[in-house]
Every structure is written in structure tokens, then in C-alpha cells.
């Protein structure tokens, strides 16, 4: 190595220019303006109709149904999904095949069919009776139709279906956690299930959250399928109106505006959760 040379001659640094970027910005701006203008002035969009219905009671009621159905179905889906995923990777062959069967069945059939099935369980089994053989054969009994209201059917149908999809996501997440973590937990005397709950799952969340965001946003739209069991969500409420007034496009716009709003909200929540679960995981420099 040489003795340190004299200080460097003063170079002037010229930052990298990206002329392409400005062209792209300009083109996008022009296109956006044209599209926006044509959307606003195009009479087919019937903006006055949109304005009339956007806060209509029926739409807001539908939105409410969409929101709570999504919330409950996702809750059930995540909780059951975690359980099924853990069962699926169990060493016990029975537990793991049971989980696999669940996955196969509920991923494999359309949710429409599942809903109709639950709702009309009575067609197959009109009455139920739970009892203790010989002693009290009919401890609890009644009509299946009374037991399964549209709400229970919707929650069962959407929740179980979602659980199957979530199970697959959770499984992938668990597999992505470094094996050393489980090993350390076992060496400390934790039971498998404790290690899963306290050590593996919290770390798997990093991988689980983004696809779960997808599922939640998807569920928001899937709920409209409950119209087959006489429940009316946001989209179906809009459809109800336009089946009478034939104002199809403006009413779909009303639904879209609400969906976009809720989706934006959920995306924000998602990136917060993602941030939270990346705790302790500093990505090495790129």
C-alpha cells in the first residue's frame, strides 16, 4: 500500500438522470386525465344515480352484512385453519389424514354448494337428537331447520371453506420458519403444541399475513354468495335495486366505491400487521 495521496481533486457529482421517468409520468398523466374525463362525462355512468344510492339505507345495510360476515368468516377461517394446519403436519397419521380430508373436501367443493348444503341440511336430516344411548336417548332434539338459521349456515359455509384455504397458507408459513427454532423450544422442555403456539406460529406470521390479506379482501366479495340463503350483502343489495330499476352500471359503481374504500382500509391494516410481525427480523441489506 502506498502513502496516502493528496486529497482527491474536487469532482462535481452529477446525479443520475432518469429522462424516461418524466416521459412516463407525462404519458400516465395524460391517459389518466382522458380516462377520468370520459368517466365523468360519459352519461352511461349516471353519476346522479350513484350519488342517490351511495348512502342509501339498503346499501349501508348490505355493507354492514358484508363486513360482519367477512369478519366472522375470516375469524373462524383463521382459527380453524391454524388448527387444521397443525394437525396436517402432525406425526400422528390419523390426525394428519383427518386434516387432509378436511382440506380436500372443503377446498374441493364450491362454497355455493356448501352453503346450500348447510342451509338445507333438513332436506337430508330433518331432525336431530343428541343423547346418551339407553339412558337418555333424546337429551337434546329438535328440527334441524330451527337450528340452522341463515346466519349459522352462512358462518358455517364461509368459515369452513375459508379454513381449508387458510390451513394451506398457515402450513406454508410454518414450513418457512427455521427448524432451529423448534429444536431450541423442545430442548427447553416445551411440548410440541406449546412450541407451536409460542415460538413457531408467531414467527410464521410474517409469511402468513400477506396471503391472508388476499383472502380477507377476497372474502369481502365472496360474501355475496349468501344471497342463496336469503341474506343480502353489499353487492347483492345493489343487484336487488337494479333488478327493479335496471340501473345496472351506476349501482355496480356504488358497490365498487364501497369495496374500494374497505379494501384500502384493509390494505393499510395489513401493512401495519406485516410491520408488527417483522419485529426482530431485520432484513440484511439488499
Amino acid at each position, binding site marked *: 500500500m502506498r502513502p496516502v495521496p493528496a486529497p482527491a481533486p474536487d469532482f462535481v457529482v452529477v446525479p443520475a438522470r432518469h429522462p424516461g421517468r418524466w416521459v412516463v409520468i407525462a404519458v400516465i398523466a395524460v391517459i389518466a386525465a382522458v380516462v377520468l374525463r370520459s368517466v365523468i362525462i360519459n352519461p*352511461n355512468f349516471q353519476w346522479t344515480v350513484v350519488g342517490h344510492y351511495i348512502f342509501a*339505507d*339498503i346499501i349501508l345495510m348490505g355493507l354492514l352484512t358484508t363486513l360482519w360476515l367477512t369478519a366472522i368468516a375470516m375469524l373462524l377461517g383463521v382459527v380453524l385453519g391454524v388448527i387444521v394446519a397443525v394437525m396436517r403436519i402432525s406425526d400422528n397419521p390419523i390426525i394428519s389424514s383427518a386434516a387432509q380430508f378436511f382440506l380436500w373436501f372443503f377446498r374441493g367443493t364450491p362454497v*355455493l354448494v356448501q*352453503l*346450500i348444503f348447510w*342451509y*338445507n*341440511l*333438513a*332436506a*337430508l336430516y*330433518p331432525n336431530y337428537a343428541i343423547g346418551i344411548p339407553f339412558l337418555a336417548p333424546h337429551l337434546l332434539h329438535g328440527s334441524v*331447520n330451527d337450528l340452522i338459521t341463515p346466519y349459522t349456515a352462512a358462518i358455517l359455509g364461509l368459515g369452513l371453506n375459508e379454513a381449508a384455504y387458510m390451513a394451506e397458507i398457515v402450513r406454508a408459513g410454518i414450513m418457512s420458519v427455521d427448524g432451529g427454532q423448534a429444536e431450541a423450544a423442545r430442548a427447553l422442555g416445551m411440548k410440541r403444541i406449546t412450541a407451536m403456539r409460542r415460538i413457531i406460529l408467531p414467527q410464521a406470521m410474517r409469511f402468513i399475513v400477506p396471503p391472508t390479506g388476499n383472502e380477507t379482501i377476497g372474502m369481502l366479495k365472496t360474501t355475496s354468495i349468501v*344471497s*342463496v*340463503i*336469503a341474506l343480502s350483502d353489499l353487492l*347483492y*343489495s345493489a*343487484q*336487488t*335495486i*337494479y*333488478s*327493479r*330499476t*335496471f*340501473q*345496472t352500471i351506476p349501482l355496480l359503481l356504488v358497490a365498487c366505491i364501497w369495496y374500494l374504500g374497505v379494501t384500502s382500509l384493509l390494505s393499510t391494516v395489513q401493512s401495519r400487521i406485516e410491520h408488527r410481525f417483522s419485529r426482530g427480523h431485520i432484513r440484511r441489506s439488499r
Partner: protein
Amino acid sequence: QDSKLNAMLPDDVRKAGVLTIATDAHYPPCESFADDNKTMIGYEPDMWNAIGAKLGVKIHAVSTDFDGLIPGVQSGRYPMAMECISDSAEREKQVTFIDNSYGTSAIYALASNTTISDDTATLCGLKTAAQAGTDFNDVLTAITTRCKKSGKPGLTIYNYPSADAVLLALYSGRVDFVMSDAAAAADIQKHAPKPIKIYTNDLIPKLYTGMVVRPDQKQLAEATLAGLKAIQADGTYDKIMEKWDLKLLELPNPMINQATVQPLPTPVP
């Protein structure tokens, strides 16, 4: 209320004092939601309320998507369904009909389209649409058959899941004409974004439409039929049909499963 009619009802319905009817309230003027989106309006709601009054039961109407309708009846969740359902031999194998009116269809086209007329020949080679799984499709097939017989090209048929999707295809110019319920003509013309003209055709048949119950619900079917006859006898039926501008579709002598008991002629292409 007529106590003799009330006595005809099955025990469970009579005791409950409520009869649940499932429908899909998205088909004006059969039934649709009023502006409050709770009340169902249409000639069928008027009819079931009148019959309910005669039978001495309250009618509880539930709107559900069609996919849930028949399973709901078969499972006993809904004792009855009513949704301008047209009667056919095939359907009678699954459910029992109490027919209450005629049903028929019409051809709808944009008023700007001047080539179409009541003559079948003007339809040959055009694009058309109808709701899937409806009898409208049989008419379209018949038109195609006649066109082909006279050496002309047949129709290109698109099927959509709902009446509004069919009409949207017409408005967007995707099809030249559509086939839909004749009863809906007034509503369609009122709400259409572009002027609409309506045509008839000699290939359009008349059908029976009615309420449906599970085949083992003979007693409920008989009671309902009796109720229907009662409102015909006292003139309520006439008033309802007149109110909805459907006098032409009145069924003078309603029966159970009329499509097989007293078949209607099908026009020959």
C-alpha cells in the same frame, strides 16, 4: 277468512298461523322490492296475500337466490315457493304445481332497429339472448328451426343468468333482440336507458305458471288451490290482474299440475 278453507290446511301451518313462501324478488312485475327494499310488490305478492287472507294465515315471504329456492322447498325450510315459475312435466317430477295464471314471453328490441317485425323471417341470422334455463330458449330454438327450414341462417343465442344481464346485452348492442317475460313489458319500457319496442311472434307459446310445494304436501296444495278458487270467485283475482295490466294472462280454471293434466299446445315451427 273462511273456516272451511282454514280447516283444509295441514295441522302445522294452521297452528303456526303463518305460511312461509320463498321467492326471488328480482322479477318485476311478478315480484320485486319496493323503494324501501323491504316490501315486496307485484301481482304475485298481491295474490299470495289474498289467498292467505282466505286461508286465515299470515304470509311470510322470503327472498332468496334461485339456486337456494328448490332445495329450500325440498328440505321443508320453505313450504312453498312462488316466482312466476312455469309448469312443465319435467318439473312436476320434483315439485307439485298449483297453477294460477298463464305466462308468455315477448320479443324486445331497440326502437332504433327498424328491420325487426312480428314476422319470424326478419329475425333469421340475428344475435339474441335469453335468461338461462328458461322456456324462452325453447322459443328461440323454434325460431332457428323455422329459419333453417326456409333456407335462412338461424339465431346466435347467448344465455345470461338474470333478466337484467339479458337487457344489458341488448342496450350495449351485443345482441339484436332479446326474449323475456311479456308481463315485464311495462317496467322494462319505463326504465330502459334507450327506447325499446316490443314484438310478438306466432312461435311464442302460452304456459301455465304457479306456486310449487313438495310433492308430499298434497294437503297444502289442495288448500292453496281452494284459496285461489275462492279469490277467483269473489273477484279479487280479477282486480289484481287488472291492476298489473295482466288480464290476458288470467287462468279461468286452475288445477294442480295442469301442464300434465291439461297440456297446452306447442306452436309448430
